[in-house]
């Protein structure tokens, strides 16, 4: 009986990929474990193995095809003596027959992010020339441009060089800048972070890539005690011009130890600056500013956003200053303040609320230290209502801090209490349904807005 070979999910966040090359042709006998195709994800080109013995019946997707969705049938396997055309009818019920581990993950479909292309909301000035690029490409361009401009900027971290980046952010940088400036480290966050901070005192401007910020907990003593406090402790003699960057927050289905948003932790520390980009333009403009900053900067990226495309201005030396929020969508009934991937929910909610006649103003904070209080307060004084949105834990969240600030500085303007939409007060569960519940959702944001609007 013919079985279907399905497009596999090759990473926790992959939704589609390019079928780069078939290594078999119709009629070939294949063995379980034999490499039958090369599949290109947004991170890497991966070899794809057959999970069964059989004969290649039909190749359903031509090589070179881009945008093949996970779980799309890409070939059929038939048994000896069976016609190549044998209908894969039975396969409809047996989708997971190609039981490569990656496929199992694909069946339990990851939460689908919003379509990448053509995201309608933009805070770019009208008329500015732009090009479409992913957040990943924008981060790489920012680093490459700053490394070209300043020979004392270098990148260090795990797999940043020869592997081309665990999330492919540093792809191509080793080729351009060489191993002196793109430094692969052993898996020793505590040690290499200390070395990087020392190097920042010695006249260099390091960019430290944490594969994810979860691993930075091993290095947090150097980030806070060594990098953030030394300018003060030295009476202004010695600062740390250094960027700590990497994926932060929940990715998809990676469980409690790999899914935590550290925004509120780092934003609590005087001496640090903290940026959390949402769009590719944010990513590029803020990272360039971060690398030039004479202070230690925590740069919180998001794995799910890496592959999303946005418009980025085409101009020499495009930067975005720290401490300047942007209004992604203007509105008059309620202020929705968010940052990073939280804006995905905020913007979706604003879209839905508009259908109910509620006009939401959506603010992208961009940086959490410094925070652009003026933009938030001006908006709240106009709308008289506020909802905050983030994926981090609820206790001591950024939303809590904003609520207190708004209460102290705009109390008389409020028509309703501020509501904080946050991740739940639980370690991140693995099960797909529970994971969705543990994060904040668009529905929660919609409900919160309706509540503060007394609707």
């Amino acid at each position, binding site marked *: 009986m013919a079985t279907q070979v399905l497009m596999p999910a090759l990473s926790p966040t992959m939704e589609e990929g390019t079928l780069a090359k078939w290594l078999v042709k119709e009629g070939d006998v294949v063995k379980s474990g034999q490499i039958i195709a090369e599949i290109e994800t947004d991170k890497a080109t991966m070899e794809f193995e057959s999970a069964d013995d059989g004969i290649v019946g039909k190749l359903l997707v031509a090589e070179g095809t881009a945008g093949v969705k996970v779980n799309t049938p890409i070939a059929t396997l038939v048994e000896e003596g069976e016609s190549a055309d044998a209908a894969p009818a039975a396969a409809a019920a047996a989708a997971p027959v190609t039981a490569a581990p990656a496929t199992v993950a694909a069946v339990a479909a990851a939460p689908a992010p919003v379509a990448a292309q053509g995201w309608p909301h933009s805070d770019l000035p009208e008329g500015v020339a732009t090009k479409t690029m992913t957040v990943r490409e924008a981060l790489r361009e920012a680093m490459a441009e700053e490394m070209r401009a300043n020979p004392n900027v270098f990148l260090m971290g795990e797999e940043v060089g020869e592997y081309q980046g665990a999330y492919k952010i540093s792809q191509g940088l080793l080729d351009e800048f060489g191993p002196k400036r793109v430094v692969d480290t052993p898996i020793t966050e505590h040690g290499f972070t200390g*070395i990087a901070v020392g*190097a920042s005192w*010695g006249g260099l401007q390091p960019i430290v890539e944490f594969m994810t910020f979860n691993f930075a907990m091993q290095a947090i003593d150097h980030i806070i005690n060594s990098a953030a406090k030394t300018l003060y*402790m030295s*009476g202004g003699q010695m600062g740390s011009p250094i960027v700590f960057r990497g994926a932060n927050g929940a990715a998809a289905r990676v469980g409690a130890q790999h899914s935590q948003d550290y925004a509120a932790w780092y934003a609590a520390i005087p*001496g640090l600056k903290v940026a959390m980009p949402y769009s590719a333009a944010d990513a590029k403009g803020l990272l360039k500013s971060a690398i030039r900053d004479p202070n230690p900067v925590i740069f919180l990226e998001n794995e799910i956003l890496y592959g999303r495309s946005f418009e980025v201005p085409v101009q020499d030396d495009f930067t975005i200053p720290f401490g300047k929020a942007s209004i992604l969508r203007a509105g008059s009934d309620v202020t929705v303040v968010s940052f990073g991937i939280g804006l995905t929910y905020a913007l979706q909610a604003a879209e839905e609320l508009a259908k109910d006649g509620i006009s939401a103003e959506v603010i992208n904070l961009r940086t959490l230290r410094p925070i652009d209080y003026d933009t938030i307060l001006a908006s709240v004084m106009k709308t008289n209502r506020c909802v905050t949105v983030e994926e981090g834990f609820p206790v001591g969240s950024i939303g809590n801090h904003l609520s207190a600030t708004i209460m102290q500085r705009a109390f008389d303007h409020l028509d309703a209490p501020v509501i904080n939409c946050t991740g739940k007060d639980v370690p991140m569960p693995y099960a797909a349904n529970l994971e969705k519940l543990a994060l904040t959702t668009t529905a929660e944001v919609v409900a919160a807005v309706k509540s503060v609007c007394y609707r």
Partner: protein
Amino acid sequence: MAAKKPAERPNVSKDELLKYYRDMLLIRRFEEKAGQLYGMGLIGGFCHLYIGQEAVVVGLEAAAKEGDKRITSYRDHGHMLACGMDSRGVMAELTGRIGGYSKGKGGSMHMFSKERHFYGGHGIVGAQVPLGAGLAFADKYLGNDNVTFAYFGDGAANQGQVYETYNMAELWNLPVVFVIENNQYAMGTSVKRSTKSPSLWERGAAYGIKGEAVDGMDVLAVKAAGEKAVAACRAGEGPYILEMMTYRYRGHSMSDPAKYRTREEVEKMRSEKDAIEHVRDLLLTGGLATDDDLKAIDKEIKATVNDAAEFSKESPEPSVDELWTDIYA
């Protein structure tokens, strides 16, 4: 390691010996004065005195050149004085005054001098080890021949980050001398009670790092070992470990009752191994100085320390505006 026997005539000039005598004596008298000021309530918080260990920093500074860097733990007053920082500025930092190296905002454990290439003064045990390797990383990257001295104690030698750093320092051939000041006690825990390793420097062998144990009470032995280590680093042969066998006479900090060792043990070290007495002996028995010469130096040092103490009392506290400065560059 016997020091009191009549010294063989070492190959060292009179001027050098006098300088070591003077530098070590400055540290000792400075620390004694700091202890007094602490007792008077003029110095607050933690205050870790270096008395007994003077030969380590003075010997290693004799092996350094301009541009070399140093970084250490919270027991840092001796290192600062030895690398040429001003005793007034150090003492005024201890009293928390504007005239201190960090304008009174760092304190005993957190002092820096970019000008003298002194990178702290670190209160977290072991943190200075990767930080020091990072300073060496920068020098190698920038292509100069500077060397960094990263000092840490026998207690810090059990920190994981030390071994992460050994691994990368050797992997990347960094010009850093790891100086283990083994004063036998990590606060109140003796080396014997914290590890079964027979020696601390030998742990570097696991990473391919050369090293040796040194009589840290003998300034000439320290200098000779320092020169060897520094030469290896400047020649591009990567890091080097020096384990200085030394002893602190005072408690871990001012609030340490020192119940973990006997008075006899301390007295024995003081009478048989004292680093300053050793050089004094060499000067006198070698006919390089008279008792009067040394008395004149003692007097001069005392005046310097008294001046520093006076300055540290007279320098005003930082203005309240200083609360909000130096947070961001």
